[in-house]
């Protein structure tokens, strides 16, 4: 890999300050019904060598965020505004032709599904050398040498033999290793991992996450790990940003976040995961409802319709991310967890028999359809009389 590192030195990016500064990034998809606000005003700063975990349910905008930063939303109806500064360079507004020089060399992405992100009719060796030859201008023989070395570095056994395999001859875990090798091929400084292990078994997931962590250390890469699983990011990130309906609702250093969750959505996400240290048949605290329609989201807090603590203020006035406290903890909530106001709000909703609060308290079953939830509350009431 030394030869690729030499080439990398030739890039003209500055080597001080944060690697990535995102400000008020918005990606809207224009459809006949209106604009789908997939990413709606995200700001974040990422220091060199750090790992940021982006967490949220499906439809929270976490994947579109990483694709927007990389400039991969090339569909005609996508409109990206705001600012993405990579090592001081503005990326929003660059054409794919201009971005091409950054892809692979400066920033690369590992996708979720290793079954479909490789070309099925091209041998994995060529899929690797293609990159090195295109971006680093290597000859065929040199490129092969680099490719075999890359396969070895992602711990693929017998890399010379595997070089001539087609993707279907490999298992899912092996294919994801190949995808990682391709992403690493040109020595990127910034790696996006978009649910890299969701399609894999737990043992393989552990191997792949270890591999990513090791490669990140060895190459001093900056990483954004996108996932729906708080377990995956807990031990492997420096900071976590929780996304909901296209916005960051809570952001903090990983340990501070887990020690002191402030946003009801983050707390609900953590509570809904079953844990092996709980006894069997432990009742899970499910979140009622599902993420809002991103074309016409509710006014006020986007989480309010599902939030057990929501008050009138939440439905009218949208909370903004509060400035970071001494631990670097930011959150956007009018009634944050751990405050007396939050407890009062919960009690008030409980007394008023607000369906999602009853569900959070375990009085009725939580469902992902709020209309059905009201029906359930009705059924429960009739049962009482």
């Amino acid at each position: 890999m030394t030869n690729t590192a030499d080439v990398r030195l030739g890039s003209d990016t500055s080597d001080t300050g944060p690697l990535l500064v995102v400000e008020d990034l918005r990606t809207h998809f224009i459809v006949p019904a209106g604009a789908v606000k997939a990413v709606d005003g995200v700001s974040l700063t990422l220091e060199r060598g750090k790992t940021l975990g982006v967490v949220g349910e499906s439809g929270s905008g976490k994947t579109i965020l990483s694709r927007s930063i990389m400039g991969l939303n090339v569909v005609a109806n996508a409109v990206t505004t705001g600012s993405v500064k990579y090592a001081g360079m503005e990326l929003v507004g660059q054409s794919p032709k201009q971005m091409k020089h950054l892809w692979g060399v400066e920033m690369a992405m590992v996708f979720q599904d290793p079954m479909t992100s490789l070309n099925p009719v091209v041998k994995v060796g060529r899929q690797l050398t293609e990159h090195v030859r295109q971006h680093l201008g290597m000859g065929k023989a040199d490129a092969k040498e680099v490719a075999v070395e890359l396969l070895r570095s992602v711990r693929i056994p017998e890399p010379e033999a595997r070089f001539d395999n087609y993707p279907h001859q490999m298992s899912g875990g092996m294919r994801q290793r190949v995808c990682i090798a391709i992403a690493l091929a040109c020595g990127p400084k910034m790696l996006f991992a978009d649910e890299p292990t969701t399609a894999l078994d737990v043992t393989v997931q552990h191997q792949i996450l270890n591999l990513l962590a090791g490669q990140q250390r060895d190459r001093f890469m900056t990483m954004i790990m996108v996932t729906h699983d708080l377990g995956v990011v807990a031990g492997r990130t420096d900071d976590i940003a929780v996304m909901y309906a296209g916005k960051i609702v809570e952001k903090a250093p990983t340990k501070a976040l887990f020690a002191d969750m402030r946003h009801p959505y983050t707390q609900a996400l953590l509570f809904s995961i079953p844990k092996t240290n709980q006894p069997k048949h432990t009742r899970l605290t499910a979140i009622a409802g599902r993420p809002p329609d991103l074309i016409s989201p509710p006014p006020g807090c986007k989480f309010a319709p599902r939030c057990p603590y929501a008050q009138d203020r939440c439905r009218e006035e949208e909370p903004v991310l509060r400035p970071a406290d001494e631990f670097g903890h930011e959150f956007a909530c009018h009634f944050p967890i751990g405050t007396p106001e939050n407890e009062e709000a919960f009690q008030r909703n409980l007394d008023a028999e607000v369906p999602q609060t009853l569900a959070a308290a375990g009085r009725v079953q939580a469902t992902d359809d709020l209309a059905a939830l009201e029906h359930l509350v009705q059924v429960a009431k009739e049962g009482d009389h």
Partner: protein
Amino acid sequence: MAGTGTAHLRQSSEALLQVTNLHVEFPAGGGRTVYAVSGISFDIAKGETLGLVGESGCGKSTTGRAILQLPKPTRGEVSLNGEDLTGVSDSVMRERRTDVQMIFQDPISSLNPRRTVGEVVAEPLNVWGPKNKDEQWAKVSKMLDAVGIDPDVARYKRPHEFSGGQCQRISIARALVLEPELIICDEPVSALDVSVQAQILNLLEDLKAEYGLTLVFIAHDLAVVKNISDRVAVMYLGKMCEISESDELYANPAHPYTQLLLESLPVPDPTVEIDEGVAAEGELPSPLSPPSGCRFRTRCPHADEICTEQEPIMRRVSGDHFVACHHPLIEVDDVAVSLTA
């Protein structure tokens, strides 16, 4: 095991379902055979939930389907309420299927997109239940209510109008409408978001209590399985490694494979150190030519000659905890060893 043996089976009179020495093999062309399931035995008492866990390709789904005779197992016995299902005629089997229903992984593709929800849930009744539409609807609406769907709203809607979680609720209503004794859940929450997953797991627990159901819960997520199961069986490459009451299994794993699975599990707590040593390398070998002796030996850190030569059999660790391993991580009960001999 990655071995065989039946020491862990309880008195057959207690069991609703008893599977003994189940083998499922598929022809693979070129005269080769896929040994999908090779000698699995387990039993389930009435009202119990048995979790089946293992990596993809370990034969857990094949085992679930073999209980329903889809397809018929190559060898072995599946007895439901004391009747061996492998021996019964097709017409009798059709009738028995009303007692055993299945819930599938992908909630959207397991519902017919051209039928309304009312029709989808009433379909089993068209075959086995009352033919009168009003009687059918009474049953269907009761079921939809039980799974948290407003029957009057859902009746004339089609599956695409519902979210994944709602569709899974509809599949559960369809499985329940014939009032089966046993439900086989094949990865019912793997395709769902964590928040929806919790809703469905809670729902299954409620329904189990309300209707006195017995469940086989197949999944690859150990935390999910622990949450819902009374007993957990760990499978590896068509064999069973370990079976135990679930709290005991997670607290004291006796099989190296169970330990590997547990150590690979990501913990949602940043203060827990990640051990990068475990799960070192290795993948599931091909079920076309499984390793001799213990099938896990190619990945096992404790494997030696005896593991190559002899297949381990089920031995008791303690109480209801059994393991098939030559070198278990905790000492096995010697009395039980002589019982199995």
